[in-house]
């Protein structure tokens, strides 16, 4: 049974994982909560999906990547990937999850694109090589560039999952031998939702997909196409170690006292203050603290093009919006004290200047020195 066979079956009818209505609403609520939609919206989403008996068709393309985004999606438990691909969406083409192979798989792609033209959700995972007309990544004798352009043509909406598809990711790191680029750079002028992250948090993806499937709308995006609900703030703003930052308690080196006490990782090169993502509030796969800072490693800025695979791991970043520390200004601000030595030096210099000025004015405007008495006489 391939996912496309399941496509026209509504919730509760899926053969492999029969979910009841309550479970179904729960699953929808989980995913929609990620976008900040209320519980009532989940019921609405469930109703919409059940009434249509037509789950949104998803075509998932893989290019230059490690499949980490798919792997993390496979490890979500609320909803589990089985619920996702069998009940919530109709995953019509996904190279990793396909039972089919070769020409059969290619046919499924063509069929899905034709049947759902204009409505399907195109998900792209991985960067697209652009050098030498894109020959560095080929599937079925076609370049990634060609496949992407064709699939994007009739897509209802396009989602770039992971940093590779969003802006190039690790494949575009210097010296970028294949000319790897993200989807927005290839499909210029089209509205593309980017969900960067290495890997991207699957709930940010799920929330976006379900909002589109239910309401036909996309979440509010920032100037880089990132949903604001997930990328509107920096890691630093919600970091569980933030109190240590404000109090000036830093880890100085891996394994030191501060590290064991869970102090702030900024000095080890944490990119949290400049990285926009919701990692501190929405943990990966619901495993508490399953993210770099949670396990004692500095954030490496995987969502940010200017940081990940560019800034060195130990390099510290500028604080984007500095806020007050845990300390206070004194009632009377400290005034610099003048040391007696400095006073003496200043007095000497001042005295010398006044003396020189006096002598100069005497030479210029005063009476000429009496004959024979001038020190500069004859010189």
């Amino acid at each position, binding site marked *: 049974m391939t996912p496309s066979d399941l496509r026209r079956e509504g919730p509760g009818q899926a053969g492999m994982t029969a979910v009841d209505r309550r479970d179904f609403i729960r699953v929808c609520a989980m995913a929609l909560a990620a976008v900040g939609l209320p519980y009532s919206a989940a019921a609405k989403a469930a109703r919409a999906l059940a009434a249509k008996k037509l789950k949104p068709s998803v075509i998932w393309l893989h290019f230059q990547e490690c499949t980490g985004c798919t792997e993390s999606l496979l490890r979500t438990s609320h909803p589990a990937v089985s619920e996702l691909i069998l009940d919530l969406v109709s995953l019509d083409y996904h190279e990793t999850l396909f039972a089919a192979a070769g020409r059969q798989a290619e046919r499924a792609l063509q069929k899905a694109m034709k049947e759902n033209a204009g409505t399907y959700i195109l998900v792209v995972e991985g960067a697209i090589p652009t050098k030498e007309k894109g020959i560095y990544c080929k599937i079925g004798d076609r370049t990634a560039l060609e496949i992407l352009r064709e699939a994007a043509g009739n897509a209802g909406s396009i989602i770039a999952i992971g940093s590779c598809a969003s802006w190039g990711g690790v494949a575009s790191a210097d010296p970028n031998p294949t000319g790897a680029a993200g989807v927005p750079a290839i499909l210029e002028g089209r509205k593309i939702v980017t969900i960067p992250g290495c890997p991207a948090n699957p709930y940010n993806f799920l929330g976006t997909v379900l909002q589109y499937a239910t309401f036909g709308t996309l979440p509010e995006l920032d100037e880089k196409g990132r949903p604001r609900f997930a990328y509107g703030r920096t890691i630093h703003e919600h970091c569980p170690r933030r109190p240590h930052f404000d109090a000036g308690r830093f880890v100085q080196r891996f394994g030191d006292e501060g590290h064991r006490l869970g102090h702030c990782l900024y000095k080890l090169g944490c990119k949290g203050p400049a990285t926009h993502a919701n990692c501190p509030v929405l943990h990966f796969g619901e495993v508490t603290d399953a993210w770099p800072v949670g396990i004692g490693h500095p954030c490496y800025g995987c969502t940010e093009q200017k940081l990940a695979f560019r800034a060195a791991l130990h390099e510290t970043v500028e604080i984007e919006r500095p806020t007050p520390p845990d300390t206070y200004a*004194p009632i009377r601000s400290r005034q610099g004290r003048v040391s007696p030595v400095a006073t003496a030096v200043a007095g000497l210099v001042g005295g010398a200047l006044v003396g020189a000025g006096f002598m100069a004015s005497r030479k210029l405007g005063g009476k000429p020195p009496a004959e024979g008495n001038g020190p500069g006489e004859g010189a």
Partner: protein
Amino acid sequence: MRVNRRLLFKSLAAAGASAVAGATAQGRARPVAPPDALGLLYDTTRCIGCKACVVACREANATRPDTSNAPGRLWDMPMDLNGQTKTLIKLYKSADGRERSFFKAQCMHCVDAACTNACPLGALKKKEHGIVSYDPKLCIGCRYCQMACPFNVPKFEWAKTFPKIVKCELCRHRAAGASLVATGGFLRYPAGKGPACAEVCPRQAVIYGTRRELLAEARRRLAANPGRYVPRIYGETDAGGTQCLYISHVAFEKLGLPKLSDRPVPEVQEAIQHGIYQGFVTPILLYGLLGAVIFRNRRKAEAQEGRAGKEGGP
């Protein structure tokens, strides 16, 4: 109001004429706070030092965080009010560390403000709701206001090419035409339009309202908690009264609030200035003395020249 060249000359001429006539030498009327004078009431016993007001002030007034004092420039850490800081929470700690108090610094919005009186072109003026307002278009950067202010509030943007004076204006730009409505015993703006520091404070350690209401509230708190506060409201009469008021469990001087007489600073300023120019006596005396010195020197020089001419002449 725009000051152009003509207006500037006109006002200078008028100032000159009035100085000659000695017309302003009479005592000035002591201004009183308008009934809708807005202000703040800060209660040291309620403040927890969270600095939400400092951050909210930055956002409301778009001032840059001051990281210059912070090690590694990691924090917004001004040491005092400055060219980019309009309000600040400070901490008073006694030598033995037993007595502590937070203190919120910002413009006091004096009923009779020294800065407005010192400002030569009226860039600082008491405007609607008695707020001491700043108009950068009229500012010539003389910084007399800094010298005049007894609370050391107006700050200058020393680091900028075209610097301005920076001070709290009670977020009057946020009100933007909104009118005051009675809310919870105070006349206030709709949420988001009042002073950001007071609106964000999680413990109502700083509240805003009209001066009259704030004084009543301060008196109520003093009466309801005998022994908790220093039994006085700072700003009720100090320096002729201020629109920002303080009640505290620690002596006000320790918080950096100076001991001032009840006489407004401008009265002192004007008494000195007008005293000097009374009947134009001082300028006449000064110029007369100067003239006498010049006259004497000139006679001496002429006599010397005459002698020299006789000795070295043909």
